[in-house]
C-alpha cells in the first residue's frame, strides 16, 4: 500500500496511470450523466407544488454538493502536500481550485434561475446563497494567489495554506451566515430518519451526483496531467514523450 503511494507520487507514474484511467472514467461519467438526465428530466414525477421547474434540482444540488466536496479535497491535498512534501498533492491543490470555482458558480447560477419562479427574485441575501457566494470568493482568492506567485512550488504551497485556513473558516462562515438570515428551504436529503424527497426524485439526484463526481475526477486528472507536464518539462521522460509525439 505504502509502495503504491510512493509510486503514485512520482509524476511519470501518475502521468501514465491517469492516461489509462481517463477513457474509462469518461465513459462511466457519460453513462451516469445520460441515465441521470433521462431519469430526472423525463421519468421523475412532476412536483405538486413547484411543477416542472423543480427539475433544475438535478443540476443545482449536485453542483452545490461538489462545491464543498472539492474544497475539502483541495484542503486535504494541501495538508498532504505540506506535511509530506509530495509534489503531486501540490499539483492537485492547484488543479482543484478552478473546477471547484466552476461548480460553485454553476450552483449559484442554477439557484438563481430556480429562485426566479419560486421566490420571485433572482437573488436574495439568504444564508445558503450567501455562504455559497463567499465560498466562490474563497476559490477566486486561492486562484488569484496561485497566479500571483511566480515560482510554481511556492505558489502551490502558499495556496495550500490558504485552503487549510479556509477549511477552518468555512463552518464558522456557514453558521454565522445561517444565524444571520434564512429563507432557503431546509435540507431534504440528509435527514437521516426519512428523506422528505420522493424516491423517484432521489434516485436521479444521486445518479447525477455520481456523474458530477466522476466529471470532477476526470477534469482533475486532465488538469493535473497538464500541470505535471509543465512542471517537469525539463526532465528526461517529458522530453522523450514530446519526441514520441512529434
Amino acid at each position, binding site marked *: 500500500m505504502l509502495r503504491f503511494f510512493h509510486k503514485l507520487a512520482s509524476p511519470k507514474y501518475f502521468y501514465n496511470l491517469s492516461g489509462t484511467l481517463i477513457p474509462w472514467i469518461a465513459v462511466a461519467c457519460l453513462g451516469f450523466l445520460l441515465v441521470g438526465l433521462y431519469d430526472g428530466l423525463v421519468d421523475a414525477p412532476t412536483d405538486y407544488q413547484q411543477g416542472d421547474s423543480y427539475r433544475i434540482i438535478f443540476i443545482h444540488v449536485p453542483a452545490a454538493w461538489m462545491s464543498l466536496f472539492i474544497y475539502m479535497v483541495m484542503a486535504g491535498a494541501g495538508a498532504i502536500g505540506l506535511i509530506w512534501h509530495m509534489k503531486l498533492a501540490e499539483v492537485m491543490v492547484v488543479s482543484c481550485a478552478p473546477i471547484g470555482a466552476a461548480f460553485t458558480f454553476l450552483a449559484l447560477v442554477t439557484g438563481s434561475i430556480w429562485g426566479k419562479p419560486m421566490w420571485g427574485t433572482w437573488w436574495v441575501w439568504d444564508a445558503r446563497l450567501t455562504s455559497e457566494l463567499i465560498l466562490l470568493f474563497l476559490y477566486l482568492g486561492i486562484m488569484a494567489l496561485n497566479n500571483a506567485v511566480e515560482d510554481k512550488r511556492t505558489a502551490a504551497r502558499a495556496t495550500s495554506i490558504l485552503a487549510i*485556513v479556509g477549511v477552518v473558516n468555512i463552518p*464558522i462562515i456557514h453558521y*454565522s451566515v445561517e444565524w444571520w438570515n434564512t429563507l432557503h428551504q431546509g435540507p431534504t436529503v440528509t435527514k437521516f430518519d426519512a428523506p422528505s424527497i420522493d424516491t423517484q426524485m432521489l434516485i436521479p439526484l444521486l445518479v447525477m451526483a455520481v456523474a458530477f463526481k466522476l466529471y470532477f475526477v476526470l477534469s482533475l486528472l486532465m488538469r493535473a496531467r497538464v500541470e505535471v507536464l509543465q512542471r517537469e518539462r525539463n526532465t528526461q521522460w517529458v522530453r522523450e514523450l514530446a519526441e514520441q509525439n512529434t
Partner: protein
Amino acid sequence: MSTAPLSHAFLILFKRDLTLAYRKRAEIVNPLLFFVLVTAMFPLGIGADPAQLRDIGPGIIWVAALLAALLSLETIFRSDFEDGSLEQLLLCPHPLSILMLAKVAAHWVTTGLPLLLVAPLLAVLLDLPEEARSTLLITLALGTPVLSLVGTIGVALTVGLRRGGMILSLLVLPLYVPVLIFAASAVTTAGAGLPVSAHLFLLTALLALAVSLSPAATAAALRISLS
C-alpha cells in the same frame, strides 16, 4: 551561545514594533482618517435621514473598520521585509508563531486600538442609540484583534508579491465575514434594547480561536513566502 527566554524575546519584539510605529506616527493616523472618512461618505451618499442612519450605522461603522484594518495590514511586514529583519526573525531559535503573535499584538495596539478611540465620535455622527455605543466599543475591542490576526495570515502569504494589496483584500475579506456579522448584529441588537451576551460570547470565541490558531498559520505562510 545562550538564548534569551521566550517571554523576553516576545517583549523585546513587541517594544521594538511599538517604537518603530511611534517614530512614524503618520502611519498610525492614516488608517484612522480613512476610518472616519469612509464613515462620513455614507450619509453623503444615502441621505441624512437620522432614522435611516441609525438603522444602518452599526453596519457602516463595522464595514469601515474592516476596510481600515485591511488598509493598515499591509504595513505589518513591509519594512521588516525590505530591510531583511524578517528573515532574521525566521532564523531566530524561538518559535516563529509566538514572535508573530508579538508582531500582531504591537500592530493591533497601533492600528486597531485607535479605532476604538474615534468610534464613539462616529457613533454620535451616525446617531446610534445610547445603549448601542458601549456595545460598539466592546465589539470593536473583541473584533479588531481577530481582524489583525486573520489578516496577518494573508499578509504573510502575499509579502513578497509586487501587487499584493489587491490580492490581499480578495484573500482576507471572505474570512472577515463572521466577525462582521456577529459584531454588527450585536450593535444593532443592543440598539433595540435586547441582550447581546450571545453575540459577545461568539465574538470572544472567535478571538480565542484566532489567537490560538492564526499565529501558527502565519508562521507557516511566512516560511513559504520567504523560502
